[in-house]
């Protein structure tokens, strides 16, 4: 009677393979390097969206401040690249050679202590994951242990996004201010601005994206994944089943933060700069919209949502720059009102049944009787 939950069921396997085909074969073959780099930029948001599927879709914790973690990951990467670009040889016209140019412009004469470890790539890679994870842990522990949840939590995360933006803009001697960190050139001597580098980085990113998808899918299928769903509905019942609800919420929030940070670090590499405009309230809310459009319960939906909304954003804002924000708002309202499960919900409700019917009618016309059990109800 009890069926084993497999890692991927049939439709998830189809989803996995078609996404892999699209990202690894179709897009690189059909797009020029400029467009492929744009796709790479869009995909960095897919990391955030996958995190939001776990944290918001499954756990019911709506964070409106994922830009914070995206930004921290991105800034960690940018600090390493900036230091490499600011070698003494490159910066000899500055009054203090060897420090980033924006520090020199702000009359800072030596490298601040917290910048120094970012000379090391292993430290940077660890920091990309640890710094946002730790911040998420602190925020999560402070909020969830005190049972702050729902809208209040969302508002606080939004406030944190605003605070971090103000901090980055205000401390421009240490952070590059409103312009962000620009003019990033090489990664361990490898020029990241060439077409070839962009091509390679695209595939690195796709590999990491599938790593995150597998990790998220793994978490979803463990008992922890089911506890997240349980918690979203009946927090008290979970508590009175002997679980510390706060710890599970902290875990989901930290995992989402780490995913967002990986996306942010890749963003810096793909786009070649990082600025506070990817940290604040507006980008954070846009990230939630990508997730909502893709379907907040679907890991694959999150990837497609990020790609499609960003694609629409680029094409529409090129033609109608004024209208884009209205379009985005309308899209969000439409999704919430008409398609609460986003694209993946539309797929599951309208497209999947047709495919199933088509497949099963072909199967029966072939007289196939071996695979009936696969789609048959459990009873």
């Amino acid at each position, binding site marked *: *009677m*009890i*069926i*084993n*939950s497999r890692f991927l069921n049939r439709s998830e396997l189809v989803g996995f393979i078609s996404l892999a085909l699209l990202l690894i074969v179709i897009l690189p073959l059909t797009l020029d390097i400029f467009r492929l780099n744009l796709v790479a930029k869009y995909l960095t948001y897919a990391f955030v969206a996958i995190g939001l599927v776990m944290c918001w879709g499954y756990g019911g914790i709506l964070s409106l401040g994922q830009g914070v973690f995206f930004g921290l990951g991105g800034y960690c990467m940018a600090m390493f690249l900036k230091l490499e670009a600011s070698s003494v040889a490159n910066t000899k016209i500055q009054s203090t050679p060897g420090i980033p140019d924006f520090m020199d412009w702000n009359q800072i004469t030596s490298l601040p202590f917290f910048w120094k470890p970012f000379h090391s790539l292993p430290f940077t890679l660890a920091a990309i994951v640890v710094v946002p994870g730790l911040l998420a842990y602190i925020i999560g522990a402070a909020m969830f242990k005190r049972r702050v949840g729902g809208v209040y939590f969302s508002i606080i995360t939004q406030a944190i996004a605003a605070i971090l933006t103000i901090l980055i803009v205000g401390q421009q001697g240490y952070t590059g201010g409103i312009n962000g960190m620009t003019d990033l050139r090489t990664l361990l001597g490898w020029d990241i601005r060439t077409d070839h580098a962009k091509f390679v980085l695209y595939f690195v990113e796709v590999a990491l994206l599938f790593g995150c998808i597998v990790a998220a899918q793994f*978490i979803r299928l*463990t*008992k*922890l994944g*089911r*506890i997240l*769903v*349980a918690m*979203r*509905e*009946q927090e*008290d*019942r*979970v*508590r*009175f*089943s*002997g*679980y*510390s*609800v706060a*710890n*599970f919420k902290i*875990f989901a929030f930290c995992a989402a933060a780490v995913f967002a940070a990986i996306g942010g670090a890749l963003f810096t590499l793909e786009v070649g700069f990082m600025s506070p405009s990817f940290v604040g309230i507006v980008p954070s809310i846009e990230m939630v919209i990508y997730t909502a459009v893709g379907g907040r319960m679907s890991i694959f939906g999150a990837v497609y949502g990020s790609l499609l909304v960003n694609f629409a954003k680029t094409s529409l804002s090129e033609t109608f720059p004024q209208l884009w924000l209205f379009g985005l708002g309308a899209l969000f309202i439409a999704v919430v009102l008409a398609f609460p499960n986003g694209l993946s919900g539309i797929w599951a409700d309208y497209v999947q049944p047709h495919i199933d019917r088509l497949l099963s009618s072909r199967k029966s016309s072939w007289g196939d009787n071996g695979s009936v059990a696969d789609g048959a109800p*459990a*009873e």
Partner: protein
Amino acid sequence: MLIGHQPKEFLLAVSGLTVSFDGFKAVNDLSFYVEENEIRVIIGPNGAGKTTVLDLICGKTKATSGSIQFRGKELTRMKENEIVQTGVGRKFQTPSVFEDLTVLENLEISYPRGRSVFGSLTFDRDAKVKERIEEVAEIIFLKDRLDTYAALLSHGQKQWLEIGMLLIQDPDLLMLDEPVAGMSVSERAKTAELLNRIIRDRSVLVIEHDMKFVEDIAHKVTVLHQGQILSEGTMEKVKNDPKVIEVYLGH
């Protein structure tokens, strides 16, 4: 009614328990004791503080003063999940099951293993767990519904599922808040049968209004009125207590 020493055989010893909400004392200097394997029913008019007493024991509400000792451990200082892990289980008045999960998954979450974050990441649904889930599912009449989403169950089935979740949790003290409320006559009979089965080998604290049901199961009855004990003893004694008749049973 404070008692200085507590004899060892009490599973649960509530003494001097008081909780006030903005000055209103919902439970006022309440003391009572539950023995091992005892079935205690709490009755009383609306607003007597019955549900509040259960909330206080399971940690949902924090006591203003007084003590709740369970097997010598002070529950008033513990968190809800710690209280559960000590062996106190609670069923709520309205069925609270996880509607987006299947019956099987509902029961699995209540299985007392892997309750930490990493424990639940590495939790394995092994043969022992499956066996126990099937066993409990059979007791709660849901054996052929294991893969049904809980949202699709009837009200009565949801109540049974929640009882099953408590059963698999295997608490030493089981607290039930109106377990047969809102059920059809046939569901009620089946539930009574079910409860009679699961209250074996453990202590039970039940809130119930159905007097027939109370008479059937209670070892001892506590009558609450305005946050205090009005009467306590066997059903026979309580039924004939003039004070009880006046405030509760009379109408």
